[in-house]
């Protein structure tokens, strides 16, 4: 038994938010400790000071005071609100990924984690990331609810079947950290663990180079795109997908949606009756034909077909043709896109 490890009170602070969460938790601890001790000391003190001395002792009557009740209620409320505001503010930071984060896809299934890097590296129950770079995980599940929990980074997020959930972190210390599935998912739930390996940037580059990548996600997606004959329609009979990602899309029923990962996924699995205004509904559903991993390849490919220009105006006033009548993207772009965003 390694006793130095056994007597820790805090896990490693290995991400940019870990220290901030710990600070908040330590403040909570001291306030809690103060009140616990206050109550315990009062109880012990009263029990001794006012102990029953004779069996027939009748203590004097005490009146209760409303001002006391109201004032301690108010004091408690104020203290609580400080922590509410602090916690909520930090929660927004923990929840909202920065826009420049590099994106890694995660698929959970009973009972393993499948990780896919944009460059094509696939990992099982392991996640290699560079230190100091914001990483956004786009996660889904093939079966039941899982949870991608990283205690050393102070984050966790349930991974739901049927939709993508996201989680982000910036690792600050090279090393190996626990990855736990933290939502009960069946028989081998307790073995659905892994590790996150945080590496110095050059080590990470070496790791990327050293592992034999399959084709990149974009390439794999492009291959699927042609295998399933998507290009036969998209571009002429169906809207082109170039520049689709991140854009608002005008639908036939007058509604507008933004094409994000979840929208693209839904459009593949549940091709809408009238996806885009002025196009007929002819696309079949691909539910059951594509695995979650193939889906994320396709999503990555469609995302690679040109990043969205910043939207300054709603599309409602713009003719769909102006947005979509572009040459069909029959060929995948030849180069693997460099992950967006810089180092921190």
């Amino acid at each position, binding site marked *: 038994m390694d006793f130095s490890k056994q007597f820790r009170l805090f896990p490693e602070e290995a991400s940019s938010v870990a220290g901030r969460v710990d600070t908040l938790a330590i403040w909570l601890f001291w306030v809690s400790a103060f009140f616990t001790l206050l109550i315990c000391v009062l109880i012990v003190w009263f029990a001794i000071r006012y102990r029953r001395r004779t069996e027939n002792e009748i203590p004097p009557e005490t009146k209760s005071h409303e001002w006391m009740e109201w004032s301690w209620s108010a004091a408690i409320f104020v203290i609580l609100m400080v922590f509410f505001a602090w916690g909520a503010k930090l929660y927004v930071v923990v929840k909202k990924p920065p826009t420049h984060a590099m994106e890694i896809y995660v698929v959970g299934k009973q009972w393993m984690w499948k990780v896919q890097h944009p460059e094509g590296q696939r990992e099982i129950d392991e996640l290699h990331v560079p230190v100091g770079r914001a990483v956004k995980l786009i996660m889904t599940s093939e079966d039941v609810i899982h949870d991608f929990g990283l205690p050393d980074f102070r984050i966790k997020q349930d991974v739901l079947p049927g939709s993508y959930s996201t989680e982000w972190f910036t690792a600050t210390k090279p090393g190996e950290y626990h990855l736990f599935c933290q939502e009960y998912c069946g028989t081998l739930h307790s073995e659905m663990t892994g590790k996150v390996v945080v590496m110095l940037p050059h080590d990470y580059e070496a790791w990327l180079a050293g592992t034999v990548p399959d084709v990149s996600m974009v390439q794999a997606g492009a291959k699927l795109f042609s295998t399933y004959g998507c290009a036969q329609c998209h571009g002429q009979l169906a809207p082109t997908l170039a520049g689709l990602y991140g854009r608002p899309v005008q639908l036939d*029923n007058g509604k*507008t949606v933004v094409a994000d990962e979840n929208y693209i996924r839904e459009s593949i699995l549940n*091709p809408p009756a009238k996806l885009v205004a002025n196009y007929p*509904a002819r696309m079949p559903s691909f539910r059951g034909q594509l695995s979650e991993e193939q889906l994320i390849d396709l999503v990555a490919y469609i995302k690679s077909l040109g990043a969205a220009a910043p939207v300054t105006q*709603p599309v409602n006033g713009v003719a769909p043709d102006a947005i979509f009548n572009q040459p069909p993207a029959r060929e995948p772009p030849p180069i693997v896109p460099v992950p967006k965003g810089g180092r921190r």
Partner: protein
Amino acid sequence: MTTEAQHDQPTSRTYFLVLVGLLILLALTVGAAFLKIPGHTWGMIIALTIAFAKALLIALYFMHVKFSHKQVAAFAAAGFVWLGILITLTASDYITRNHPASMNYKGEPRYLQSDYPGR
């Protein structure tokens, strides 16, 4: 229940008027369903408002809430108030959820199209 309450008891005539009122409301709600009302929210609001009106008539007259002690009214209302809590707070999540029925860039709920395998 008490003797004084007995004096206010509704007569057969009151009951009949209530029934007529209920049937008129029924006709109204069916009629409203066939109007072309823009947006699904308004149709829902109209239908549910009429339903509440009907429920109120039934509770107040047929179920004698109007003629009973106010405690009975409180008991009758409690269930609906709590159902209101359940629906409101659950909807607070569904309306603002990031995925999959999420918001568009203007903060309006996004309506996903359903899956029509036949087309």
